[in-house]
């Protein structure tokens, strides 16, 4: 069995199983902890504050006017590489075919050359993100192994993917194998690090937003 065969065969199977196991494990572990009832009288009706929670999911995607001056650039950097990643992961035809083979449905993709441009841009942004994490004193203080490893593994996926499409650094099938293998590793690492934020971000915004709105507080 060659590397490619392993990467997208048994390797991928293990990765998917570990991914599902880990994600469930982590979520169930805290979701089943005690939730205390709130006895104070809400300022808003439940419908209103749950709605506010939903609105927070969207509104928190960009800083409030008061914060833009200090955080706008940083958040823009963060969101833009995320958008780049989504575009490349979801709109590159070989990726769509991969996902189709997993889930059984597909959607139209973008031209490969456009994807290449987007991925090079995303890669550049990703380097900028690391630069920022290392040079910004706050981020450096907060950062731990998780932050750097999650960055590294995502970067690895991008670099091997780009190398495979550009045929740089080795025969295509080996690069493709490394690319898929790095995706396997990413999937397995996913539940054990900060990548879990993909699952957390919207519920977290919604729940905290709703709890603040319950008090009529700013959210």
């Amino acid at each position, binding site marked *: 069995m*060659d590397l490619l065969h392993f990467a997208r065969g048994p390797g991928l199977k293990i990765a*998917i199983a570990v991914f*599902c*196991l880990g994600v469930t494990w982590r979520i*169930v*572990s805290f979701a089943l902890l005690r939730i205390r009832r709130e006895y104070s009288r809400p300022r808003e009706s439940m419908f209103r504050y749950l709605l506010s929670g939903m609105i927070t999911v969207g509104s928190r995607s960009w800083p409030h006017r008061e914060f833009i001056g200090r955080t706008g650039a940083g958040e823009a950097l963060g969101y833009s590489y995320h958008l780049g990643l989504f575009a490349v992961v979801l709109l590159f*035809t070989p990726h769509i075919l991969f996902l189709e083979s997993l889930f059984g449905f597909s959607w139209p993709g973008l031209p490969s050359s456009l994807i290449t441009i987007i991925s090079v841009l995303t890669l550049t942004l990703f380097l900028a993100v690391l630069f920022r994490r290392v040079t910004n004193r706050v981020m450096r203080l907060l950062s731990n192994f998780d932050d750097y490893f999650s960055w590294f593994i995502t970067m690895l996926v991008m670099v091997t993917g780009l190398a495979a499409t550009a045929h740089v650094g080795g025969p*295509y099938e080996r690069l493709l194998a490394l690319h898929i293998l790095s995706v396997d590793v990413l999937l397995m690492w996913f539940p054990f690090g900060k990548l879990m934020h993909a699952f957390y971000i919207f519920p977290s915004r919604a729940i905290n937003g709703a709890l603040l709105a319950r008090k009529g507080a700013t959210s």
Partner: protein
Amino acid sequence: MQRSAEDLVVGEMLRRHGISRRGFIKFCTAAASAMALPPWMGPAMAQQLQNAQRPSVIYLSFQECTGCFESFTRSFAPTMESLIFNVISLDYDDTLMAAAGDAAESALAKAMRDSFGKYVLIIDGSVPTGAGGGYCTAGGKSAVDTLREAAKGAAAIICVGTCSSFGGIPFADPNPTDAWPVSSIVSDKPIINVSGCPPIPEVITGTLLQYVTTGKVPDLDEHLRPKAFFGTTIHDRCYRRPFYDQGKFAKTFDDEGARNGWCLYELGCKGPTTYNACATTKWNGGTSFPIESGHGCIGCSEPGFWDKGSLYSPLSATDWGKAGESSPRQVLELAAGGILAGGVLGVASAGSGRLRQYRSEHPLDPEPKDS
């Protein structure tokens, strides 16, 4: 087959057959072109061959379909006839030779004895080792024994076809005859693999010609294939490549994209992972190649191509398929298993957290009474 002119150098042979020097230069130019060698190599090869002796070649067929030999006979440049008559001395080939039975066997023995240490051994077909080698025998001798014996006196072994190179179809799961490629059985001789199912005719003759003219094993890739023919992927040299780059893909074999000649990636083309000269040398004297005829590459020159999933599933897709099992279903099963196991772990984790909370709030109670 008689070695009628064993002492003659090639140049003299050519003259005897009424082939002029210009004709020979042309022959070598065409061969160099077919082998994707630099164009100046053709005349240089012609010069060298003029004064060389014709080497002895022994062609043995094992567990095979003769497709490779059929391909061999269809080489345009150089043609097999011109090779046999002009450049090499084909001393044993059970398909071509008129002799049969004991006469054939003794011809083989004689060739091996006369040119011991000098002959080129061409192997076609995989070597079955199951049942004591009994799945493929000739004259009471098993293929594996014949190979071992013939290999002893060979200067080099050229494996023609994916079967002798990598095991091929007989080697595919479940490999009932316990077949192996030549390289798994012979390890002490230079081996050149000319893979393909079948290999491109010009690649067979070209490799042979290149070896006999230079006397050296050419540059080989990690699968022992000559880089001159197997150095780039089909995808790299494919005339449909611009459509891949533009993201234009045929979705079915009869849609608008297919009629427009768009990229066949989505239809399972294995071009990106297949190393062969199909896109440049092409087939039938440069007429066409599978992709040009509208079908994706099936990757036949790659090791294990038969076991790498459906010929029609895209390269980037997973290859979990056994017949009747869909990937989405497997994903669902894997996910369900993972979620179940994760759920158990999660409940255990949250449970122990709650127990701790309970203990710290009720330090005097030995056991929790409610949850």
